[in-house]
């Protein structure tokens, strides 16, 4: 009974639900209290202790449906030992046997041989005459469990597991037997054995595919995430790019939680002796009320200017996503985009969900060629009166102005006023200062120019930035 539950929890973890051991123990108590017979009750009960956010609830419902529904329809020999389940299965396998008998009557010879076969002790899928339904599957399931099918993780492992399961089913002996029969001229029986074999193989493939579906490519997803983080954003296929947003949200959440904690730790100050004494004069100087020195932190404002011209748009898309996700820790972030003039899009990001906002930005302002002169000048005009020693300006772009005005004077203005001007360049350092790149000149008017072609570099940079701003 608990085994089913454990399998189900594995299944949930594969789908990204963080189920802890303590929660597993809870779930066991829940199933003990509720029993397995009422699926709706079970679902509601397990959901309350396994799915802890609203999003998780949906995933949970999906997994529950997938897992227990599949069990009812297919899992003939499942080790679940659900009373209801086995009861359902028994009559069905009986039916299969009866059916086999009837078929046997139809063509005399095969029937006789079929009976002879079922008397044989071999594991060679004997009783499932004509490769019929549930019994073959039951045997395959049993063999699959023996072969450790639940450990399958990658599509590429299918071949290995197919071989293992067939081995457990005694496929080798059977092939030898078929060979021998053919040599002895008993083609009919050999054909019949081969039919069984084909049916078994089909069932094996079925089982393997189902298990892959249940495991949901968890490991390959983990590997893919890792690769995605490290690979250069500009070189990424659009197929992979679509998988980025959830990954970005995950990274941003990680950063956010880490920095929030640090912030909270530093908040409580030392005892404010003067105030404590003053306020406790009424109690004869006995310090019943204590007061702490608190350091007031002025929040730093962050301005992000993002190039969304054709060449770097995919990359700035990622960064804007990141910024939006980070707004939890950095509530005073203002976003600007430019091809020509700089345009503020902060409200747009607040109003719409991330993807929609990006689409709108692209559609309204995107895909021209970049004019850094105009962009930096208008940017300065918009934020100049807000800039002070606590502001931080981040500019994202490749610094390729197509030979036009560089706007370096405006950037220098910003540089003198702001606490920090950072320039993130998606190009790799080797191609800086080649062609129409003006990054060297911009370097003179920025505190730091960094290369951040991949998500991991970006995460590291922002991590550093956040600890600096505290």
């Amino acid at each position: 009974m608990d085994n089913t539950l454990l399998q189900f929890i594995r299944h949930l973890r594969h789908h990204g639900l963080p189920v802890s051991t303590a929660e597993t123990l809870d779930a066991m108590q829940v199933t003990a209290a509720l029993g397995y017979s009422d699926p709706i009750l079970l679902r509601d009960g397990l959901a309350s202790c396994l799915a802890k956010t609203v999003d998780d609830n949906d995933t949970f419902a999906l997994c529950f449906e997938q897992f227990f529904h599949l069990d009812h329809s297919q899992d003939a020999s499942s080790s679940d030992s659900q009373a209801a389940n086995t009861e359902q299965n028994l009559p069905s396998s009986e039916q299969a046997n009866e059916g086999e008998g009837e078929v046997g009557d139809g063509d005399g010879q095969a029937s006789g041989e079929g009976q002879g076969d079922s008397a044989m002790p071999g594991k060679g899928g004997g009783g499932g005459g004509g490769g019929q339904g549930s019994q073959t599957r039951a045997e395959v399931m049993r063999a699959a469990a023996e072969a450790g099918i639940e450990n399958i993780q990658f599509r590429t492992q299918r071949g290995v597991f197919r071989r293992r399961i067939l081995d457990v089913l005694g496929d080798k002996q059977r092939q030898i037997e078929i060979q021998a029969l053919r040599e002895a001229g008993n083609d009919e029986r050999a054909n019949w054995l081969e039919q069984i074999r084909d049916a078994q193989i089909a069932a094996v493939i079925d089982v393997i595919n189902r298990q892959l579906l249940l495991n949901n490519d968890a490991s390959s997803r983990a590997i893919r995430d890792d690769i995605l983080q490290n690979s250069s954003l500009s070189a990424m296929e659009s197929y992979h790019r679509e998988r980025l947003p959830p990954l970005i949200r995950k990274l941003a959440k990680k950063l956010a939680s880490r920095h929030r904690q640090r912030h909270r730790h530093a908040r409580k100050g030392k005892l404010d002796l003067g105030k404590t004494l003053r306020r406790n004069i009424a109690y004869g100087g006995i310090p019943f009320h204590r007061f702490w020195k608190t350091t007031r932190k002025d929040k730093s404002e962050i301005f992000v200017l993002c190039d969304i011209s054709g060449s770097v748009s995919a990359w700035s898309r990622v960064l804007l996503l990141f910024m939006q996700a980070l707004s939890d820790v950095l509530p005073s972030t203002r976003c600007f985009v430019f091809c020509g003039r700089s345009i503020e899009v902060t409200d747009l990001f607040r109003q719409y969900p991330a993807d929609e906002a990006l689409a709108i930005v692209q559609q309204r302002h995107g895909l021209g060629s970049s004019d850094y002169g105009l962009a930096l000048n208008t940017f300065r005009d918009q934020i100049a009166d807000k800039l002070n020693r606590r502001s931080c300006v981040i500019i994202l772009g490749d610094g390729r102005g197509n030979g036009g005005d560089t706007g370096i004077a405006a950037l220098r203005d910003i540089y003198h006023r702001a606490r920090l001007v950072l320039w993130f360049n998606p190009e790799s350092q080797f191609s800086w200062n080649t062609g129409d790149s003006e990054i060297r000149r911009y370097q003179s008017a920025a505190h730091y120019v960094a290369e951040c072609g991949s998500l991991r570099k970006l995460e590291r940079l922002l991590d550093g930035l956040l600890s600096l701003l505290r």
Partner: protein
Amino acid sequence: MSDARKNIDTLIAQLAEQGYIASSAIATTLYIAQQLERPILIEGPPGVGKTELANATAAMLNKPMFRLQCYEGLDESKALYDWKYSKQLLYVQVLKEQLQEILDGAEGLNSAVERLHNFDDIFYSERFLEPRPLLKALQSDSGAVLLIDEIDKADYEFESLLLEILADFKVTLPEIGTLSAVHKPLVILTSNNTRDLSDALKRRCLHLYIPFPEAKLENQIVQSRVPEVPEALRRQLVDFVHSVRSFDLKKQPAISETIDWARSLLLLHSDSLSKQLVEDTLNVLLKYEEDIAMVTPELHSLIKKSESGLL
């Protein structure tokens, strides 16, 4: 197994007696929480009856309810315990002479301090403790229902403070030691999801999400809360509210607003929705000017729709 089903059905019936119409999921979670002695964390949009569930449960169990409303800056001296400073002070003043007697004849500072050490920390004993909701719930003789409302509004530190209570039903006071619950209270936390709660907190709780109810359930709720509303009108208004929820509104009308609206319609002695009536009372249902502006042009078709739903 059918025992569990039976118990849960009784639970639903008992809650209904208190005027709370619970869905099966709600009752199941409540049942498990009682069996496992776990806190429940309830999430959901405002006004779907999160707080009400705690009230109804307390009434159903016939136990006192302690409510702790969370807000930014809430700390342990307001949530857990405080010292009765004025009482301590008074005692110090009154006992001054006794102290003098004790110290009489002591030679030098050392021996005086030595004598003082022989007395326990009388001023920091349970007699001077001022229990706040959390401690009150733990000390309650007959068990209690503890409602920690809108936990997402409190700070992170406060969440950590709660962990010990939620896991073991114990609190550790530095001056006294660890106090355990006399009877484990049923703890209900509610959250409006304005921020993510920590995983540690979530791990210790059962999670229950209460969404907006289906039309049938909402119908029952309105019936139980405002039984005077004629059935035809009730169906019509519930249908209307449901179609309003499909708009992109700043604030969706919740159950509490449906009930308020039903009450105000009752007050106006109306037995069916008309355009004029809805226009005049829409502000009961929708709380933002923009929302009202968005729905108003569609009123006619919405009313038509709710009427046809009736037939």
